[in-house]
């Protein structure tokens, strides 16, 4: 019997609520070399790092949100605060109406945290032993455990992996088992920090497909950080972008592109390979196929000119890929901060 968790989150306006959430670290730092190391024995120089600064957003129950930003932006620190690992320096965080920092038993039974390339499965025993362990510590009734495990085995194709010691599994196989183990208690909120890191393309695809299915089936709320934009495009309708601990953007992927990279990409094939630089920025030219970047507001006008003036054989208009958008934001960090 499949028990939906949608009902349990109902009645709560926000599955995640962050209000001015901030975290500062005091980090010891010293200069290079033995002399500096010796000096640091008697004189410690500390620097206060503002890892997260006044981050404010809400996530509705059942929503899947991509949490983006460059390395060191504060994504993982935010997730650690939301899952209850870190105590905030300032501001408020509520998850399913719980204060995460208190790590109440009922709260911990309703969330899960998955970190790419980190294991909570016991390394030297088969995954099925760890699953049984999770069944007991989460107090999962036998019938629910069996139905959830069967479901995981079918969706993730786990059958051949269950009885091998975890250490003998490949990274992709291990991550599938980690995912299954983390979801056995059917959590309502999933914090996923780079869950597909290091996985091959096929494993990434299966991972995303499974998460999408889990979200649809159980209405789970997902906060996902990933540097693979495929994860974000496939799973998230909404993204929150942070950098240097500060929030830069909160909205749809389309709106993100419109705000930070307001261009359309035109791919066209013409007879004779004409010079198209007068129509827009030429991004690439592969054989007869030319890719142009055109300001969004000028797209219709440029298209009309192209059709009227050139012998076009093929034409495709698209938004820039999310990877391009994110790359663009990373290169314009300072400008983006000014916009915010």
């Amino acid at each position, binding site marked *: 019997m499949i028990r939906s968790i949608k009902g349990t989150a109902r009645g709560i306006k926000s599955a995640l609520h962050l209000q001015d959430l901030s975290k500062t*670290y005091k980090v010891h730092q010293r200069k290079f070399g033995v002399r500096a190391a010796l000096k640091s024995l008697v004189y410690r120089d500390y620097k206060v790092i503002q890892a997260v600064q006044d981050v404010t957003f809400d996530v509705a129950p059942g929503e899947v949100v991509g949490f983006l930003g460059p390395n060191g932006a504060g994504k*993982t620190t935010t997730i*650690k605060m939301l*899952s*209850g*690992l*870190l*105590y905030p320096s300032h501001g408020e965080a509520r998850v399913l109406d719980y204060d995460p920092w208190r*790590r109440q*038993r*009922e709260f*911990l*039974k309703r*969330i899960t*945290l998955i*970190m790419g390339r*980190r*294991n*909570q499965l*016991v390394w*030297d*025993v088969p995954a099925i*032993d*760890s699953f*049984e*362990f999770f*069944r*007991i*510590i*989460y*107090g999962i009734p036998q019938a629910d455990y069996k139905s959830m495990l069967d479901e995981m085995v079918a969706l993730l194709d786990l059958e051949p992996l269950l009885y091998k*010691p975890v250490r003998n599994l490949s990274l992709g196989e291990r991550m599938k088992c980690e995912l299954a183990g983390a979801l056995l208690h059917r959590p309502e909120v999933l914090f996923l*920090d780079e869950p597909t890191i290091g996985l091959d393309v096929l494993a990434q695809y299966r991972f995303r497909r499974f998460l999408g299915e889990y979200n649809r089936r159980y209405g789970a709320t997902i906060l996902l950080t990933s540097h693979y934009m495929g994860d974000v495009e496939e799973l998230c309708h909404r993204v929150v972008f942070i950098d240097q601990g500060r929030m830069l953007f909160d909205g749809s992927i389309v709106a993100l592109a419109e705000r930070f990279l307001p261009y359309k990409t035109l791919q066209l094939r013409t007879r004779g390979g004409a010079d198209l630089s007068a129509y827009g920025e030429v991004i690439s030219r592969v054989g007869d196929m030319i890719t142009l970047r055109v300001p969004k507001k000028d797209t219709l006008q440029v298209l009309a000119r192209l059709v009227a003036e050139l012998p076009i054989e093929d034409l495709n208009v698209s938004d820039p890929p999310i990877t391009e958008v994110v790359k663009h934001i990373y290169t314009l960090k300072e400008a983006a901060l000014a916009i915010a």
Partner: protein
Amino acid sequence: MMFRLFELFRGYFRINMVRFLAYRVETVIWLVGMILPPVVFLSVWQSAAQQAGRSLAGFSRGDIATYFIAVMLVNHVTQAWAVFLWESYVREGYLSYVILRPNPVMFQDFAENVAFKVATLPVMLLTAVGLAATFAPTLHWKPWAVVAFIPALLLAFALRFTVDWITATWAALNMTKVDAVNVLFFFILLMTSGQMAPLPLLPRGIQMVANALPFRWMLDFPVRLLMGRVGTEEALIGFAAQAGWLVAMTGIGFVAWRSGMRKFTAVGL
């Protein structure tokens, strides 16, 4: 509530037992490491007693054999090694997963501890029988002391586990590096618990330090109680000391854990 706690313990116990059985060679090496020190100390102190031509501080050669065989068994039951484990817990990020489980963090170490002991106790008992056959221990047991030994042993385990766990968590949460604390902790334990020698055989200064620390109540007291070398008054003082240290350490542990978790930065993840 009790059933749930039992279920939890069963879960932790089972997974740790399975893990120990997977790490067969490592388990044997640990066992050898636990058996060898008391056997070496036994041989050394018996030789010393023989050369002295009489007993040492009231310990005959047979008493010395009894003492160190009992030390081996009591040490096995009371042994705790969270100080050894916690550095990797923190540095490899495993602690973060343990913290996010819906039960007390201490459960992991407690169940691992008990599972190891259950898995290895038969070997220790057989070793004790073998040592008894080899070193001819003398027995002066008093029935009341043997009965009193059981709660003394349990309190000794509770105290040693608590002190070890507090030291481990304090060092891990505040310093991240636990190795140095580990070395110091085991040295103090070796010198002041009675592991290296019966305390009356050690210099007066070390005896005074031992009296001021909790470690003698983890080993020396239950061992001498079992041997019938403790009077009723001293036994009562021993129980009071064990209980007092346990309460104090639990209180300190509670405060240290809360303040440590506020400083914890979840490194390794």
